């Protein structure tokens, strides 16, 4: 700025940046660097760490429960990401239409987003309960005997995915809706003049022009699902038989329940690396399907 006092400027910079710098250093840089160091140690958080080299990283691939957690996290991701994309895209398409009650629909679909995962988990634990749950009751009216859901190792993860979909679809529908609203009407008008069917319009106008938003949503969903924890912690505690233990749950258990904080740090770094690799792969793949220019 013109004609301002240098001292005043320096004081302002320091004063205004102080809280954010403190946050950056104390809550991010220091703990991250420390955890990088601790990941090469045997550390129980109580006594001083001892250096053990890359043993913890080897343990990630050799320890049975650690491997299981990685597999389960991928199982969750593979089910959750596509289903959330499909459902929220359909919802967004409808919410983009000029329906009379569209504002009401938008407001209502967003309500589950307000809930904490704990509330969602407790609610769905009841709904999925084998004996007193609503879902199995409704299934029994159709003549189907429902499984024990969260107590059945085949269905526990599916049940968690359903509950997660219920909470998250409104959020992602609203994100995608913003993308849809940025598409100019002209494309649809000229397509109408050419006699394109609605389905055709969806695939040749909507999807390509929405692809940047879609790409962003897929990235966020993937990152979120690799870090999934709350639902499992409340609904199944990782069970039955370890079928819903996730990577973050392993990190939490190792650090705070089993006193293997060094291993937990290594697992956290592994999670970061997996996230990074998947993001880079998706970023590479986007060149094939994301259109940044107009069609």
């Amino acid at each position, binding site marked *: 700025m013109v004609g301002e006092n240098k001292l005043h400027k320096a004081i302002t910079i320091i004063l*205004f940046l102080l809280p954010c710098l403190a946050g950056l250093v104390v809550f*991010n840089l220091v703990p991250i660097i420390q955890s990088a160091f*601790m990941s090469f140690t045997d550390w129980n958080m109580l006594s001083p760490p001892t250096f053990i080299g890359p043993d913890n990283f080897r343990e990630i691939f050799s320890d049975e429960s650690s491997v299981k957690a990685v597999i389960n996290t991928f199982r969750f991701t593979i089910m959750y990401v596509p289903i959330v994309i499909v459902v929220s895209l359909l919802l967004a398409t409808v919410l983009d239409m000029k329906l009379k009650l569209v504002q009401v629909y938008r407001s*209502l679909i967003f309500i589950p987003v307000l809930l904490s995962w704990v509330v969602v988990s407790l609610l769905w634990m009841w709904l999925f309960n084998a004996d007193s749950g609503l879902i199995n009751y409704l299934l029994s009216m159709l003549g189907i005997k429902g499984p024990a859901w969260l107590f059945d190792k085949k269905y526990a993860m599916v049940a968690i995915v359903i509950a997660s979909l219920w909470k998250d679809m409104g959020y992602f529908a609203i994100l995608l809706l*913003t993308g849809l609203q940025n598409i100019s009407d002209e494309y649809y008008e000229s397509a109408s003049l050419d006699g394109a069917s609605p389905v055709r319009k969806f695939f040749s106008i909507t999807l390509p022009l929405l692809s940047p938003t879609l790409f962003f949503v897929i990235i966020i969903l993937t990152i979120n699902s690799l870090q999934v924890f709350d639902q499992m912690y409340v609904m199944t505690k990782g069970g039955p038989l370890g079928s819903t233990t996730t990577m973050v749950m392993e990190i939490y258990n190792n650090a705070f329940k089993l006193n293997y904080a060094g291993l937990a740090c290594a697992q956290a770094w592994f999670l970061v690396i997996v996230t990074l690799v998947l993001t880079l792969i998706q970023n590479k793949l986007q060149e094939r399907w994301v259109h940044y220019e107009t069609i």
Partner: protein
Amino acid sequence: MKRYSRLHKPHIVINTVMVAILAIVIFPFIWMFFGAFKTNMEVMTMPPKLLPDKFNFDNFAQISKLVPLGRVLFNSVLVAVLTTGAQVLFCAMAGYVFAKISFRGRELLFILILLTMMIPFQLSMITLYKIFVRMKLNNTYLGLILPGTYNALGIFLLRQNIRTIPDSYLEAGFMDGASHMKAFFSIVLPLCKPVLATVAILGFMSSWNSFIWPLIIVSDSDMLTLPVGLSRIQGRWTTQWNLMMAGNLISFIPMLLVYIFAQKYFIKSVAGSGIKG
């Protein structure tokens, strides 16, 4: 309906499908609401009934025996309000410097902050816990609040917004003898109210619903926040659905009230965090 204009007739079909989906979305809330007032017998009986025979408020008293409910609710409100307030202020202050005051290394510092957005909290939480314990911040409000006051996305959103304020506005203020502090509070903040609201809403939601950090940093039941408090209720009574729903209701209603009053901002916030983030 301009976009899919050929769909004129199926209008009714689309509305019906939408109402069906919304029924699935909303019905669990209704189930939860009435469940909170049922007796334990009623939540276990098959076939289930929607309404309780009589509204039974005893459930709330019951959970208070395990978790000091009033205190936990108070903690949650206090922590969420203070976290949000501090976060918005700190993000705006940093955003102002990054947008309007140049100094050496500014861009580098800004990029460093953006990079922290990519780092999952799980990476820092273990050693951060250790640091907080050493600073005696476990089981304190400060321990619950502090990590949430730093938000890289908020700094980014505010910096982008403050950059759009023309320098001439600020210069006019400086001509009249205003300090940076004065310019920030009387010129900048009023001009970026919508983005402040976005950051505030996202911050409030994430603080109110935050789970893993309070789970780690608090063990004392007087310092619990609602999500962790609720998870304790569940740990104790595995089939007392009525009690769990009562707890759920207490956790959900404050958020619902905020939503009813600031509904438009909520949806805009989510939308805004998407395009720019």
